């Protein structure tokens, strides 16, 4: 935790890390802020699920508004911004290069957050678009794209200036993610929000293509880059095989386009079969990645930070289970049960919060002290272990409860002799338990946010003091 400030010979790292200090700190501070907002919305929505009278006379906070608001705040606010920070960090570290154009990144980030604030407010104030993962009103996406062009452009420039030419597997995943997102965003937002949008159920497929691309490729690849970076890094061993990673990388990229539970929806038969086939290939790629990581870990000791390593392994397991369950749920027999139940949000929690979210928080925990040269304050509730235990147990609880509850709800729904009230009752216990998980995640998000904000303030104060002292020295 404190090696960044202790050992002498890493002055190179210091140069690299500090070039990254302010963009990163702001990105991470904003990201954790959005995580807090997202988990708050999610908590409120969860309460509304079993207590419909709660906040019921306001059009801004209906359940149907809070859920997409939480989801979009998580994806665009937390996951992508923290993802940018983590990807920039890995680009610089693995390429041994200083960050290019931090100013542009800063501008891009401000624009990104502006777009997001407008988007979330627009969504809550009656501009809900109705498309999953693209719930914000249409005007937001060109803004997000422009902001992205600044951030991603600088990341790619940094990548091309790298001094280590040889690519580490994580870098493939990072670049696929960096390239895929703007293309996907452009295509999907054009197809759905232009003056001549796609008609009928073509919208459903384009939307699912975006959702699947976001889950499996854009955010999934951030997670996979991080997990393949942290497992060797924390265990002090090399990644077992670049060939296995290579194989899994292209398989996921090729088949990540239309995973998900489309079987038995009102789509032509081919859509369900394609989604099932894609989900199976993605889960095979996941098994290969998991095998690669498992081989890398074999025979390693406790590593430099056992708790972080444990978290990374737990996150990887969430990702693997999520991919396998998606493949299983896409089979016709299972789809008839889990379709339209809480199973789908369960999978989203497992993949986005359990896998990607945990890894992003680990990355924040790992690189922020190195970048700022300030160690985390330890002890008490605010200790890292406390926060992450709180977060991961909350996420696991919600995923488990939704997956099991979804199965039970789906079983009841598939039995036509049961009334809808019974279907509702079947899921209710699980929904109530999920609120506990939501509360845990919210508390964790609050603590992370406080920590990061504290760090940002300390850094700014140090910076201002430095400037003042320099000035006073100059005047003397």
């Amino acid at each position, binding site marked *: 935790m404190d090696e960044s400030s202790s050992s002498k*010979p890493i002055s190179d*790292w210091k140069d690299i890390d500090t070039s990254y200090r302010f963009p990163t700190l702001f990105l991470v501070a904003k990201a954790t802020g959005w995580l807090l907002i997202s988990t708050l919305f999610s908590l409120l929505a969860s309460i509304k699920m079993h207590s419909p009278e709660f906040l019921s006379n306001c059009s801004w906070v209906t359940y149907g508004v809070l859920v997409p608001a939480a989801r979009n705040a998580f994806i665009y606010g937390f996951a992508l911004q923290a993802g940018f920070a983590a990807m920039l960090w890995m680009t610089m570290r693995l390429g041994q290069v200083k960050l290019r154009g931090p100013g542009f990144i800063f501008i891009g980030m401000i624009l990104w957050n502006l777009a997001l604030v407008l988007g979330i407010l627009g969504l809550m104030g009656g501009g809900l678009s109705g498309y999953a993962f693209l719930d914000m009103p249409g005007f937001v996406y060109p803004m997000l794209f422009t902001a992205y062009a600044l951030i991603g452009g600088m990341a790619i420039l940094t990548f091309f200036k790298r001094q280590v030419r040889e690519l580490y597997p994580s870098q493939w995943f990072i670049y696929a993610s960096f390239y895929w997102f703007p293309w996907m965003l452009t295509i999907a937002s054009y197809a759905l929000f232009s003056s001549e949008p796609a008609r009928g159920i073509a919208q459903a497929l384009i939307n699912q293509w975006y959702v699947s691309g976001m889950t499996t490729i854009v955010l999934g690849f951030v997670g996979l880059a991080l997990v393949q970076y942290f497992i*060797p*890094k924390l265990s002090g061993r090399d990644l077992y095989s670049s060939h296995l990673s290579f*194989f899994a990388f292209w398989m996921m990229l090729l088949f990540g386009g239309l995973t998900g539970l489309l079987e038995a929806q009102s789509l*032509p038969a*081919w859509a369900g*079969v*394609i989604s099932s086939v894609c989900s199976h290939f993605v889960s095979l790629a996941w098994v290969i990645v998991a095998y690669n990581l498992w081989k890398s870990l074999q025979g390693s000791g406790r590593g430099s930070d056992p708790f972080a390593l444990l978290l990374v392994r737990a996150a990887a397991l969430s990702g693997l289970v999520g991919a396998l369950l998606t493949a299983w749920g896409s089979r016709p027999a299972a789809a008839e049960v889990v379709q339209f139940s809480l199973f789908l949000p369960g999978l989203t929690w497992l993949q986005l919060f359990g896998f990607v979210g945990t890894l992003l928080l680990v990355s924040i925990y790992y690189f922020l002290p190195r970048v700022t040269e300030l160690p985390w304050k330890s002890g008490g509730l605010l200790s890292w272990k406390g926060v992450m235990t709180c977060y991961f147990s909350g996420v696991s609880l919600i995923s488990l409860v939704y997956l099991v509850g979804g199965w039970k709800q789906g079983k009841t729904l598939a039995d036509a002799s049961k009334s809808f009230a019974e279907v509702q009752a079947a899921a209710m216990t699980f929904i109530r338990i999920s609120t506990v998980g939501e509360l845990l995640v919210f508390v964790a998000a609050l603590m992370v946010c406080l920590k990061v904000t504290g760090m940002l303030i300390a850094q700014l104060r140090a910076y201002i003091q430095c400037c003042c002292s320099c000035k006073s020295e100059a005047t003397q």
Partner: protein
Amino acid sequence: MSSKPNNTKSKGKTGNDREPGVGKAPVSVGVFVVTILLAYWAMMELNTRAGGFSRYVYGPYESYAVVESVQPGSGDDPIKRGADIYRNICSPCHQASGMGAPGQFPPLAGSDWVNVEGPNRMLRIVLNGLGGPIEVNGETWNAVMPGFGDVIVSDEDLAAVISYVRNSWTNEASICTPEEAAAVRAESGDRGRAWTSTELLALPLEVQ
């Protein structure tokens, strides 16, 4: 740490902050075998359950042919019955596509003799045949078509095949009823010779 960081080997030297390296273990045969098996399974799935990628095949129906065969009252559907008759009697010349053959048999798909208000003239051509030049969609054809009044004996079948032609491919015209077919047959069934296009053009479009 060396001052020139472009040597990857130097990464390993800085203790905890060492950047990870990567091994070069080969991909085992098992991975390829599993991938190939999965690909084979995927092909089978796409072959058997995807409904030929048709926009008309949904859910429990296996293929377009199944969807077609389960249409309600399909036994009594004149268009469906007409399709069978067309396949047996008409398609040798006019083709299953209704496009005819260039220079020999005029098209029915998109024809200005088919897409008209009533089936009067079509019924007469099918019953008694047609001879001499005929202009279809601005092009003049010179072919002889025999009459099928003796082949298609039931008025329901006659009406069915006319309805099929009038509502297939790009054609959109009214259904021909068995009553209309019966009326035309009663009027001109014993005519005994083929029509010419000039004679037909003098007749009304709709069955009187």
